[in-house]
């Protein structure tokens, strides 16, 4: 049980997307489950942060911090829905 969840990734996701993201919905490319990003299972001891679907374990989002950049892989997310108020 070394994982945390997407709440703890809120600051990093904000850096990537420029907005609060934990309450936004993502659809898993693996199983189609739709969940707020806060519920993703997050492993922080990997190189970078790895977020997986809480339903099927598909790798949703990987964020790696480099000296002057952040690289984000979002292969495992079919869509993200950004609520605009």
């Amino acid at each position, binding site marked *: 049980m070394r994982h945390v969840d997407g709440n703890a990734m809120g*600051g990093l996701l904000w850096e990537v997307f420029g907005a609060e993201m934990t*309450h936004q919905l993502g659809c898993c490319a693996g199983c189609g489950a739709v969940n707020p990003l*806060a519920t993703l299972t997050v492993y922080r001891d990997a190189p970078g942060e790895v977020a997986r679907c809480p339903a099927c374990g598909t790798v949703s989002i990987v964020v790696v911090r480099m000296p002057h950049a952040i690289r984000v892989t979002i292969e495992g997310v079919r869509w993200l829905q950004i609520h605009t*108020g």
Partner: protein
Amino acid sequence: MAGAEIQRRLNWLVAVVVGVVEETPSVRSLTLSCPGWPGHRPGQHIDLRLTAPDGYQAQRSYSIATPSEGELVTITVERIFEGEVSPFLLDVVAPGDRLELRGPIGGYFVWDPGEGPPVFLAGGGSGVVPLMAMLRARISSGDGTPMHLLVSARSRDDIVYREELETLSHHDGVVVTLTLTRSRPEGWTGYDRRVDGAMLRDLVMSPDSGLVSYVCGPTGFTESVAGLLVALGHPPHRVLTERFGPTGG
């Protein structure tokens, strides 16, 4: 709110430590005065960053323990064995010191006063911190939302905010229940075990009430309690969780 959230930039701010409270032998609250702080919602957290003289940086997330109050932000920190940041915050930091933080962060594990559905809060160890912000906001706002806080701690001495919780439990519409999993004081009549289905059946309103639950603590605690609530018929989207990891934040 959502529109405003999208406009705001998440900048690092410099805060000054203005208050320190030793909550338990291994838990301490720090009140920070943070010029430029935009205010926050109960349940939100900050990222805190320490920079060593050689430039090495370590960053951690800490839940905010109090409702929004000007530029004041209170966090509660638990000592993590062999941790890199928490021993510094518990042993070294003193009033007048400066710390870098950014926030508030979090749009999911939040509760706002406003006479919404009844609320059940379950905290394991220092998982009580963001729940305390919700409970304190409920009381200071005069909101009438029924709110029940269940705290699981190893012993009475490990209960964070114990004195305050003991007085809050007499507040109208607020119920505080404690369970002590490892050791109990003599004459203890409360729960004496880990949270289980029977305990939740005793304490928690039925799903028909529209109850919203917030569960926060170590990963094992959070997943177990959330699973039990869902098994009792509470819809998963009304059981909100925040998992700290193996030993806490």
